[in-house]
């Protein structure tokens, strides 16, 4: 729970978190090393100095630490933990759904565990979707369209195999499709992060919500254009939000564009933990005000109501969380570890 300076309670759903193992012991090859190194560079370059972690802690952290950073020291009420496999880089995968679910079950009512699939697996992808639904009851997935697989350098949401997966997701009630469309971070062809395939998939699957992580940056204009056309396209603020610290004016420009084109009902907060921790992000976001010139130019404002939606209410709606009931439930459960 985030308590504003005036004492108001704000319900926070962290829309994008990870519980990874990028440690040298789990690295399969140089790619595994370079992958976590690159994440660490994101962490180092966009975090406030006092929030920097030592490298070994960043490579692998405990469930207890994650819980503390998000819910005890941090303001999150709930967090969506995303799954990323990268089994070609890491012996046991980077953060598989099994690892995430194992962690999540220690902390009742706190986590929403999302799955992942790769449509290039064909029939196996469909079987895996069934498995994830039956075993973990998932309501969402996180997809990486730019992952390498054999000779393939990525896939598109519009590929026939992907459509078969979406059909199954719609049938099983896995309605939230998070898609990484952002900066390049894994070996990939940049074009695989092109956002245009979202347009078609979103039109063809009206029953699914497409949450575009990182808002397509650096293809913000394309993303905005698509989000205007499609009612079921949302933007995840992970990676865009940390700019609030080092380059607030730039963040203001980005959020103004998003408010104007996409609107406050369709943006989701995400810390991208453990790249960043939620506490400073939420505090800075709550205290942030749009500069007057941008307000006038775009005719938008980042009101307290808009902030509440972005910080939690929008994600709660997508995942069917009854906020009042959830608050009451969480209030009854004391934190399972002492604040560090």
């Amino acid at each position, binding site marked *: 729970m985030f308590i504003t300076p005036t004492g108001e309670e704000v319900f926070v759903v962290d829309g994008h978190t990870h519980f990874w193992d990028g440690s040298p012991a789990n690295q399969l090859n140089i790619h595994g090393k370079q992958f976590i190194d690159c994440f660490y560079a994101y962490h180092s370059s966009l975090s406030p100095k006092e929030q920097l972690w030592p490298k070994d802690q960043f490579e692998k952290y405990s469930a207890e630490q994650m819980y503390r950073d998000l819910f005890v020291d941090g303001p999150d009420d709930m967090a969506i933990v995303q799954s990323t496999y990268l089994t070609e880089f890491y012996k046991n995968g980077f953060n598989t759904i099994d690892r995430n679910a194992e962690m999540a079950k220690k902390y009742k009512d706190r986590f929403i565990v999302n799955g992942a699939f790769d449509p290039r697996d064909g029939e196996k992808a469909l079987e895996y979707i069934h498995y994830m639904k039956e075993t973990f009851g998932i309501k969402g997935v996180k997809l990486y369209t730019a992952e390498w697989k054999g000779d393939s350098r990525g896939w598109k949401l519009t590929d026939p195999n992907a459509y078969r997966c979406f059909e199954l997701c719609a049938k099983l009630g896995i309605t939230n499709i998070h898609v990484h469309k952002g900066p390049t971070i894994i070996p990939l062809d940049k074009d695989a992060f092109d956002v245009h395939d979202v347009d078609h998939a979103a039109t063809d699957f009206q029953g699914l919500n497409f949450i575009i992580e990182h808002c397509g940056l650096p293809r913000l204009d394309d993303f905005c254009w698509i989000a205007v056309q499609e009612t079921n396209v949302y933007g995840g603020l992970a990676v865009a939000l940390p*700019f609030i610290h080092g380059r607030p*004016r730039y963040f203001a420009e980005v959020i103004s564009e998003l408010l104007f084109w996409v609107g406050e009902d369709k943006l989701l907060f995400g810390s991208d933990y453990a790249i960043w921790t939620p506490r400073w992000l939420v505090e800075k976001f709550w205290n942030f005000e749009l500069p007057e010139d941008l307000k006038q130019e775009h005719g938008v404002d980042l009101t307290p109501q808009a902030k509440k939606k972005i910080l939690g209410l929008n994600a709660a709606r997508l995942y069917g969380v009854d906020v009042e009931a959830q608050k009451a439930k969480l209030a009854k459960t004391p934190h399972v570890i002492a604040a560090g």
Partner: protein
Amino acid sequence: MSAPLQQHDRKTSEVWKCLASVTDPELDEAVTELGFVEQVTVDDNDGVDIVFRLPTYWCSANFAFLMADDMRKAVSALPWVREARPRLREHMVAEQINRGVREGKPFGEALREFAPGGSLDELREKFQRKAFERRQEFMILALRGVGYEDPAICRMDLRTFDQVDFHAEEVARQKVRYLQILAERDLAALPGDRAFVTYEGRPIRPHEMASHLQRLRGVRINMEFNSALCRGLLAARDGEPDADRAAGTSRGGCGGCGSGCAGQPVASPSVIAEKHSIVPS
């Protein structure tokens, strides 16, 4: 200092100067200013080795290839250079890129798996357009900043534009870059030509200016995102303490982020300083 040594230093510095004309296509900023070039060595046979590194191991292969190729071409054009050998290090496909560029192979051949249709020339063209638009936005905002109204900007010719004194070094520098790209693209050359046209060479009407600028802003926001990330990631990779955190300036000085901030009358001095600081701090 002995004469041969002096000559050697002169050659090295010529190479550095020459490399300053090579830009990261995605950012429209010089590779030297971005801090990509680590080392230049001139050997006794006038062969030149250029060692460079990008912000991450994963940086896009096609941009990496473009930059290496551009470096080779630019440095080879110096009359005394026998051979220019760019060498990218610590990159997922460094070997293929270095070999491909050395052997003068086209990108599609050197890195078959990264060229899913579409040539590098198309990519170059796409980024030329972005560079043009970003530079143009900067100048339009700068003109507005010194009091020009949209109709005057729309009909302004090169002669008039040339005479505008912005009283700011950075704007003057950007003006040169804008004029350069106008000439390169054959969009305006004679004193009577319009200084502000679309990339297709069409005049911009005053009532179109708002939507035109809105589009250009979109281009800039994307490029700035890349630029900020790249610089930050490179600094993190170098393991340097981020100089900006302390000094509030980027390591290359205010190096043409092209954001048009100098032209925004509403920006307070602190905002201007912040906008010029390219590395996230």
